[in-house]
């Protein structure tokens, strides 16, 4: 292993000071002179024709500056994947879910805007609303979108190998069903944006987004503006987890209102509106049939999945593919068949959320694998190890595991959890369970078909050589990318951590697809590393010319120039530097030539000292339809062992301890890696045990608050024994790959498997409430 000084450490985050002092500014903290406040009118009905909209009373209210509806707004359709653009800024002829946006108001203050919204009169004709898959796909149904008469918005059929033939060779085959519930992102910061349009025709949007780039493109496309006239800036973002990865009506309406009024417009969701907008985890109905040999060899998997999509496609076209493609690995499985159906329903649209598309599938399969291992009389860890993939293995759907520490992860959680002493040996009501999982390290392709670079970066050195400015359009949303990219820049250039100042999240800084699919460490990291190395070469090149020393005999480390062949006389450079900084008191001193002095030489030669980097993935596997979803330059993986207590009287489940090993390739920041692991497990625990967005029979969310929709508190989460595995990913910068999503994969099934070990019942419907366990225990007693 190479020696590093900045990366693979536990340096504090670059934004930690700003965040602990309250100085960090989030979008809703911004205000501008003359700023207006916007509010949205959203449909109270889940499916309704809009017959008439009367905004006259709203317009007359004192303080109201603009009211816009579909009549005043662009009808250009947008969404996430161009193949499924199915949204407009406002509903035209009909509303498709309770919460669908109908109009927007800009007024001098928020209270006036809200009052104006209440004065807009809409005549609706209520239509039959479809709140589940069977109702939405019944005979003679009314289409939610005219283009999809049967309400099936997307279908995927894939087969790798030959599943039916393979099943004939199996000794044991079983089929299980599994269903999760719609989960909410539940990030702490509600979406917010401020749009400012100026008289030169420039539109600047400050927004709490995961992807400034996608928002910029969508706004330019829908509002008919040149891309160069639209600048999207992301202030600090209070969590995203997926739902903030696409442009929304909130952003488009604010832009439209700013253009119409010529004044800045701020719009912020209430917590209820966050639930209504949603774009979070789908509900998945999986049916899995897995076939194995007597000796435990996995042979074939048939996976059928129905996804409750909600009213629009959002990220759903990717979700439906991921719900199939993220099975198979990390096990050697030669035959896999997948049939997926994403159904439109009259509920808030579902989209991407941490572990995109794969979390329910993984829960279903890892529980089934546990059942199979028991039927075969094998230890669940031995069964998994028997089938485990290793570095260099390629899945039947062409995912190249260019690094994979899956075996090491499994062995680590086994050895660190006391597995051998505990499995099947704990007292009644106590149990232990295991599961594995993997995830992409960046989507191999952008969400729109394009040859675009996925990330660019620019490193500029100040004229005194003292400060390195890093510019990237990547999105810090809490996961720590600003810190990771600063560390990468400092390490690659050879300067100190504190000498690099990062500016990120602004479309003026370049191209970056943003914070989704666990891509930024690998992809933005590559671009940043390249930019830093590029400027380093420029500096050493100039120094080489000045000192007449070959470039390769020099290096930069820790802010000083290393002369590999021994001491060099650089007194001319130093005295000149000091002469140029008369009056300063912090002159370079000591026996080493400093980075600042060397960079100054390069500056004096070039005038502009800038290094650039750009990254897009190389050739990836898979020529079949849908190969673009799931193929990635690298894959992270995770194994977890969980211990639970099940109250055998009430069915209440408590998670007592969690052991998690994750292969992140190479940890740029060890503290951040652990933070991602612990955060992932917390979100998984919430989905496993209590999270569920609930609806009434007219499609209205009945629990749109953190009081009614429970996420884990500090009393629900146990401490996690976090183990970092490093497999040195050849396609990652310094060997690094993802951690933010792979770590959630094993959590739910590990809990489910532990519940079985504790109580002898298998739960196939989330969340695992006391009632579900209690009922299962009662059923078991009857038998």
């Amino acid at each position, binding site marked *: 292993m190479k020696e590093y000084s900045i990366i693979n450490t536990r340096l504090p985050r670059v934004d*930690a000071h700003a965040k602990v002092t309250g100085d*960090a500014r989030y979008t809703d903290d911004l205000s501008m002179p003359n700023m207006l406040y916007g509010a949205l009118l959203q449909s109270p009905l889940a499916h309704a024709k809009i017959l008439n909209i009367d905004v006259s009373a709203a317009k007359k209210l004192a303080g109201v500056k603009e009211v816009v509806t579909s009549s005043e707004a662009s009808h250009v359709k947008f969404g996430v994947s161009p193949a499924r653009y199915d949204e407009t800024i406002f509903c035209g002829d009909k509303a498709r879910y309770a919460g669908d946006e109908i109009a927007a108001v800009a007024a001098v203050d928020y209270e006036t805007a809200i009052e104006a919204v209440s004065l807009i009169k809409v005549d609706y004709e209520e239509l039959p609303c479809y709140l589940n898959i069977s109702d939405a796909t019944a005979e003679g149904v009314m289409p939610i979108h005219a283009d999809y008469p049967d309400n099936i918005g997307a279908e995927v059929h894939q087969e790798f190998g030959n599943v039916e033939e393979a099943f004939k060779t199996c000794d044991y085959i079983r089929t299980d069903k599994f269903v999760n519930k719609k989960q909410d992102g539940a990030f*702490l910061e509600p979406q917010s944006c401020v749009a400012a349009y100026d008289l030169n025709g420039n539109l600047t949007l400050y927004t709490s987004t995961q992807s400034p780039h996608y928002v910029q493109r969508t706004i330019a496309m829908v509002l008919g503006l040149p891309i160069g006239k639209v600048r999207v800036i992301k202030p600090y973002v209070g*969590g995203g987890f997926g739902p903030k990865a696409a442009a929304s009506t909130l952003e488009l309406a604010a832009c439209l209102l700013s253009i119409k009024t010529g004044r800045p417009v701020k719009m912020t969701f209430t*917590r209820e509106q966050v639930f209504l907008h949603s774009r979070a985890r789908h509900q998945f109905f999986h049916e899995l049939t897995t076939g194995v040999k007597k000796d435990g060899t996995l042979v074939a998997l048939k996976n059928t999945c129905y996804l409750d999509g909600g009213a629009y496609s959002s990220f759903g076209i990717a979700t439906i593919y991921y719900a199939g493609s993220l099975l198979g690995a990390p096990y050697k499985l030669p035959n896999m068949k997948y049939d997926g159906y994403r159904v439109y329903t009259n509920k808030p649209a579902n989209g991407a959320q941490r572990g995109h598309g794969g979390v329910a599938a993984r829960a279903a399969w890892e529980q089934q694998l546990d059942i199979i291992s028991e039927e075969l009389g094998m230890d669940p860890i031995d069964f998994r190890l028997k089938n485990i993939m290793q570095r260099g293995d390629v899945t039947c759907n062409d995912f190249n595991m260019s690094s994979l520490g899956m075996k090491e992860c499994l062995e680590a959680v086994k050895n660190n959890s006391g597995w051998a002493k505990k499995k099947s040996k704990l007292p009644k009501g106590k149990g232990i369970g295991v599961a594995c999982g993997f995830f992409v390290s960046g989507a191999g392709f952008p969400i729109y078909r394009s040859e675009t670079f996925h990330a660019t970066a620019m490193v500029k050195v100040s004229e005194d050589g003292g400060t390195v400015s890093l510019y990237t359009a990547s999105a810090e949303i809490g996961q720590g990318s600003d810190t990771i990219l600063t560390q990468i820049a400092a390490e690659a250039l050879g300067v100190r951590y504190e000498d690099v100042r990062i500016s990120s999240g602004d479309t003026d800084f370049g191209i970056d697809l943003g914070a989704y699919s666990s891509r930024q460490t690998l992809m933005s990291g590559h671009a940043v590393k390249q930019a830093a190395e590029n400027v380093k070469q420029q500096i050493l090149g100039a120094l080489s010319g000045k000192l007449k020393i070959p470039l390769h005999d020099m290096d930069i480390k820790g802010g000083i120039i290393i002369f590999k062949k021994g001491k060099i006389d650089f007194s001319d450079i130093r005295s000149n530097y000091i002469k140029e900084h008369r009056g300063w008191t912090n002159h370079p001193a000591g026996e080493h030539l400093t980075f600042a002095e060397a960079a100054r030489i390069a500056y004096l030669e070039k005038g502009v000292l800038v290094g650039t980097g750009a990254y897009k993935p190389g050739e990836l596997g898979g020529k079949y339809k849908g190969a673009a979803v799931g193929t990635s330059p690298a894959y992270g993986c995770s194994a977890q062992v969980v211990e639970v207590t099940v109250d055998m009287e009430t069915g209440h489940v408590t998670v007592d301890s969690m052991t998690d090993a994750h292969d992140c390739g190479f940890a740029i920041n060890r503290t951040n890696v652990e933070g991602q692991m*612990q955060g992932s497990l*917390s979100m998984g625990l919430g989905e496993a045990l209590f999270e569920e967005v609930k609806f009434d029979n007219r499609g209205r969310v009945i629990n749109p608050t953190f009081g009614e929709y429970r*996420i884990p508190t500090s*009393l629900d989460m146990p401490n996690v024994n976090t183990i970092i595995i490093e497999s040195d990913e050849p396609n990652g910068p310094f060997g690094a790959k993802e951690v933010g999503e792979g770590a959630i994969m094993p959590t739910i099934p590990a809990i489910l498997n532990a519940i079985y070990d504790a109580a002898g019942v298998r739960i196939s419907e989330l969340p695992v409430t006391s009632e579900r366990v209690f009922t299962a225990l009662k059923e078991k007693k009857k038998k």
Partner: protein
Amino acid sequence: MKKLITLFVNNNKYEIAVAPNKTLTQVLREDLNLLGTKEGCGLGDCGACTVILDGRPVNSCLVLAVQADGSGITTIEGVAEGQKLHPVQQAFVDHGAVQCGFCTPGMVLSAKSLLEKNPHPTEFEVREALSGNLCRCTGYQKIVEAVEAAYGTKKE
């Protein structure tokens, strides 16, 4: 009609006219420009708006500004002493207790409030004191570790 109230925020005296339906969160953010106090739900569920009111941590979104008339309030802006971070803040920095940061001001204030009353809390006491402050990013572990370490009470 607006009512004239006096607030002692971070040891500064403010006399302000506020509408009777304005929450303390709104007045701190909008009238006093103390933007470190966050609003995550407006319903008292998430704890992001936590401030210390007359020595007790409260959800400032559930307090009407007029109710706080005459009270002493500490917001996140009043925790550090100039450039010197409070031990809780420093521990949050050192232990990786910050991710998105939206819950952080409330967490720091709840933790500070606990440690002032109970400088040697058990892990459970820390978790109990923070249970009204939701965090979706960290899984709480590094926050709990930071609070335990802040006053050097963590048993290694």
